[in-house]
């Protein structure tokens, strides 16, 4: 591990079908900001058409195919810098497994599950099995302590992700954006003793005490630095971690080492 390496394990990009005219500028801005921050790898997904022709969190099979294809295009355009998650919608089991097969063959390095189906639903099981068989992590969108249904998504919380993780102890799960809104302390209580769930530090939240609480709950070996849609808060959390005097080994693990353990061996090597 080198201190220079910095892997953003939760990134997103857009396409011409994403329903916004500035999609290319936003993609460029991510790469530009990443370069300023020292990001050496963006592991990213495209959630279908981001609501343009099917809902962001309930993407249609056609939109999923489009997004994954575009994601692969970005990985090919930026080899060694951009890596892709394969997005699937568990409500279309056949399509999901076909996408996984072809995208894994094409070089995608992980699976992104958003909020199309609750994490503890049986329809997610075949995807978790595929992940374990192929050594792929699952980045699972999580609403930190979902106290009710929220429109636009069938979000899972940490308790539901833990049910899935316990059914699939050989699958590696990355709990998305601990700082992405909701009660992060609730999630930490749920996952602290679940060894196959890692914590993605992304999200717009920069609450005092949050990073310290994550450290206490899961330790530096299960913390994975990431940004999601707000890279400035990602940088802020990185700097705050540096101020905690963790020691270079633990900090390197959070910056990149844990991500290297999660994703297939060697994918981030030059």
């Amino acid at each position: 591990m080198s201190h220079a390496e910095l892997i953003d394990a939760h990134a997103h990009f857009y396409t011409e079908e994403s329903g916004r005219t500035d999609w290319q500028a936003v993609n460029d801005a991510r790469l530009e900001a990443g370069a300023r921050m020292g990001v050496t790898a963006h592991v990213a997904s495209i959630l279908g058409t981001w609501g343009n022709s099917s809902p962001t969190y309930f993407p249609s099979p056609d939109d999923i195919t489009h997004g994954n294809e575009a994601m692969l295009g970005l990985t090919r355009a930026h080899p060694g810098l951009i890596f892709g998650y394969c997005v699937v919608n568990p409500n279309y089991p056949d399509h999901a497994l076909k996408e996984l097969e072809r995208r894994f063959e094409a070089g995608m390095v992980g699976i992104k599950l958003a909020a199309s189906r609750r994490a503890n639903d049986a329809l997610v099981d075949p995807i978790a099995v595929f992940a374990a068989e192929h050594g792929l992590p699952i980045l699972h969108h999580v609403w930190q302590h979902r106290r009710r249904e929220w429109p636009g998504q069938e979000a899972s919380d940490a308790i539901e992700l833990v049910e899935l993780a316990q059914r699939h102890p050989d699958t590696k799960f990355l709990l998305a954006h601990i700082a992405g809104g909701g009660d992060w302390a609730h999630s930490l209580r749920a996952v602290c003793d679940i060894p196959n769930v890692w914590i993605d530090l992304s999200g717009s939240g920069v609450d005092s005490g949050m990073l310290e609480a994550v450290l206490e709950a899961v330790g530096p070996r299960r913390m994975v630095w990431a940004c999601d849609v707000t890279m400035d808060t990602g940088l802020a959390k990185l700097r705050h971690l540096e101020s905690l005097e963790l020691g270079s080994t633990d900090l390197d693990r959070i910056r990149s080492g844990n991500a290297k353990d999660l994703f297939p061996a060697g994918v981030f090597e030059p």
Partner: protein
Amino acid sequence: MIVDVAAFIGAYPYTHLPESSPEYLLAQMDRMGIGEAWVGHLPSFLYKDPAPGTALLLESLEPAGERLRPVPTIHPGLPGWRRDMDNAKDAAAPAIRIYPMHQELSPDGEAVKESAIAAGALGLAVVLTVRFEDVRQRHPLDAVPDLPPSAVRALARADQRVRILVTHAGRAFVEEVHFGLTAEEASRVLWDVSWLWGPPENELRKLVATIGAERFAFGTGMPLRIPDAVPAKLDLTGLSSGDRAAIESENVNRWLQW
């Protein structure tokens, strides 16, 4: 010298804060290169009478001298609030805080307008907080709605001496208020940058381009939030050194001398 216009001491009623003392603020300010902070008493936003919170605020900040400047909370619905305002002036406060939503006052009603006008007459700015936390994150009992943009417009129009610092406003809120005011009215409103995201969406950079760097101030939200967030945002936003200096201190210093 960076001026943090949105800091607090004291506990937050809905969740535990590991640190919230003046000493903590000073240590973080040293770490981040912040020279001066405007400091409110955090729990006073829920106090029926915030005056005891102000007394504690003044006592707590006194050893820090001018590095920590008090921003007392005023409850415009209480009898005698003008005395509290006078006391704030006597304590050399640069501003007072009003929480219309938590104080169950009409945010654009007469009591709030009257207090803003009185603050303006005394040379005190009014600090308004749009929200403390994201709606997804709030305690189940914290059902108070966000401050509406219409409240800021109403106060800015109330009197030419009224100056308003709005904290924790998002991009749409800022735009709705700014372009809903005359240029003169808008010139009396400052926005802290804490809730405006950096790249890749680059909300802050877009707003600097559309409404000008002179409308923004540096506010961390300590100790609710880590202070690293605002410098990180400014580092990534790609502002000119002049725009950055304006946001970090020049705007608020000029505004105070108005």
